[in-house]
């Protein structure tokens, strides 16, 4: 079975690509419309990866599957939007960042440290508890209204390639800007991990906790740093999603969408989060627009999961994830 992994994965991708272009080959879709949907899907996928990035970071460094990432996104967005009502935006961002770092410290101290040697499921449930707590706390402090986040994102779409195609291809400019922000963030994070001392320490901890401790890396401090970085990522995701949807309670549900992304990409890989996001976003939107009508609509919710599930059957550890070797 293992020797077949590579060809099977390639076959999966070939199938995926075939499925993606099938609306034009089998169905009656025209290229410009297909391109619109595909671009929209890719861009949405980038937004999912933003949330998935936080998940991957924390799992990589502390082995905890942080279900509270969505709640962190919501909390960061809520804090920012409410503070921005009272002070200039840049100051609000800085203050929110400080609050996220403080929150990271509190979580590490109160939740993670007492649960250090517990099994994965227990830690997962603990982050679920943190998610509920943050949901309630954020709303009780800042309120449950929809708040508009003004960060200067473009709202009107842009029609491109009008000369080539009749009617042109619609591009959602807000999503494009979000994708650029995500790209910058990923580049910054990659630089951080490769070039700085803290980044290398984080990678050491992700590799092997005990070995890292034995060379003198302070585990607790590293965990606070990781959760703070995840908090920063949550803040960026909160800004982008909040500007798009308005800052409201359902923002924390977006995290549920990040799960298939992480599955596809692998729990421990940052490029995996990006690639996984692109695949999920693309698959989701194409399926909803072209496959959906045959089923009556509304299929994108489960299609992403089913896609990830099918992929898992062939590669249980995800695209770029570490292969787990079972030992008795």
């Amino acid at each position, binding site marked *: 079975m293992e020797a077949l992994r590579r060809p099977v994965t390639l076959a999966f991708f070939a199938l995926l690509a075939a499925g993606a272009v099938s609306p034009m080959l089998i169905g009656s879709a025209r290229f410009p419309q297909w391109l619109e949907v595909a671009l929209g899907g890719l861009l949405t996928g980038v937004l999912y990866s933003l949330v998935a990035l936080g998940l991957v970071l924390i799992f990589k460094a502390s082995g905890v599957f942080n279900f509270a990432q969505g709640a962190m996104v919501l909390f960061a967005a809520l804090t920012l939007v409410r503070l921005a009502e009272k002070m200039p935006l840049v100051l609000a961002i800085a203050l929110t960042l400080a609050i996220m770092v403080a929150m990271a410290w509190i979580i590490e101290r109160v939740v993670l440290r007492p649960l250090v040697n517990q099994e994965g499921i227990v830690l997962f449930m*603990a982050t679920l508890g943190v998610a509920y707590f943050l949901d309630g706390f954020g709303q009780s402090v800042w309120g449950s209204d929809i708040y508009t986040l003004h960060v200067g994102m473009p709202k009107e779409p842009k029609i491109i390639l009008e000369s080539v195609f009749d009617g042109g291809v619609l591009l959602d400019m807000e999503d494009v800007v979000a994708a650029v922000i995500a790209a910058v963030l990923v580049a910054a994070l990659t630089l951080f991990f490769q070039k700085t001392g803290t980044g290398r320490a984080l990678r050491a901890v992700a590799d092997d906790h005990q070995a890292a401790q034995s060379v003198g890396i302070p585990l607790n401090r590293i965990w606070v740093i990781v959760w703070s970085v995840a908090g920063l990522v949550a803040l960026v995701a909160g800004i982008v999603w909040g500007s798009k949807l308005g800052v409201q309670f359902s923002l924390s549900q977006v995290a549920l969408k990040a799960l298939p992304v992480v*599955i596809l990409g692998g729990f421990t890989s940052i490029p995996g989060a990006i690639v996984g996001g692109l695949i999920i976003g693309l698959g989701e939107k194409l399926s909803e627009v072209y496959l959906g009508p045959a089923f009556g609509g509304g299929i994108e919710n489960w299609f992403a999961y089913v896609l990830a599930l099918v992929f898992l059957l062939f590669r249980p550890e995800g695209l770029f994830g570490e292969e787990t070797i079972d030992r008795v």
Partner: protein
Amino acid sequence: MIYRETGQFKTTYASDQQLFPILQDRVFVIGLLAFAFVAVPFLATDYLFRAILTPFLILSLAALGLNILVGYCGQVSLGTGGFMAVGAYAAYNFAVRVPQLDLLVVFILAGLCAALVGVVFGVPSLRIKGFYLAVATLAAQFFIDWAFARIAWFTNDTPSGSVSAPPLEFFGYLVHGPQEKYLLVLAIVSVAALVARNLTRGAIGRSWMATRDMDVAAEVIGIRPLTAKLTAFAVSSFFVGMAGALWAFVYLGSWEPLAFDVNRSFQLLFMVIIGGLGSILGSFLGAAFIVILPLVLNQLPTALGIPLSTAMISHIEFMVFGALIVFFLIVEPRGLARLWAIGKEKLRLWPFPH
């Protein structure tokens, strides 16, 4: 001193293998059942039946099912709400399309349908483990949610998608009124708990636990992972499906697909974790905790005289909920059932110091 087992000798294998070998346990359980069946219908108020006891019993049945899957077999599942929905809609379709069937038969058939669906969605567990499996079960949850919202046949072509259960008739006897519904649910749940307990004590239960503890080693000694995992999914989904049918027919009366969404799955997982993984008693304790907690939190501010808006109460509910989960996980990760066991241990000596 109360819980001492000295003086209790067993002279046959059968008496040694019985469900409650210690006399005090037997007395307690039989006493509890007698109290629940005989005394409670006269003592409790309507409100207690409708809002606390009936949902508690139904949800503990669902938690029982989930505990078999997560606690005894180690397969994390976040799709329990979907299986409850399968049970509920299957029961509805049987009751409406084949009205000659008695409701008890309908419930069992609903459980079987849910078991079938559970097996189908459990197949990935043969390849996938841990969190990956949890997320894969979310696929089941969302797909099932969508299927019941979209496919009109399941809801008997009601345009609104909201269906309501027919009157509860068991062997010609019409069950109405909170007491009778409570007794019905109590009877079903008692039988189910007995069955579950015996299953987990038997060979099949041991194969589940072996798979949970070290699946590769289990395979090495001859336990087929296919059988173990799929039977766990089947039995678990049977209980969960029956609980879903009961929830829809007895408690809600009228429901739509959103009644069994992903929040329900999380709620059940909380019950199982807080109650204690791998313990039948734990399912009941966890269900009691989760059912009572929001009610307590709702009443507490008014009882203490602090005026709070309903929004604030709701938010505090969330916060206390989350905090309590973390608290329990830190203080006793093995759940309330473990606390109970510790209590019994202490009772062996108490009030003596040694």
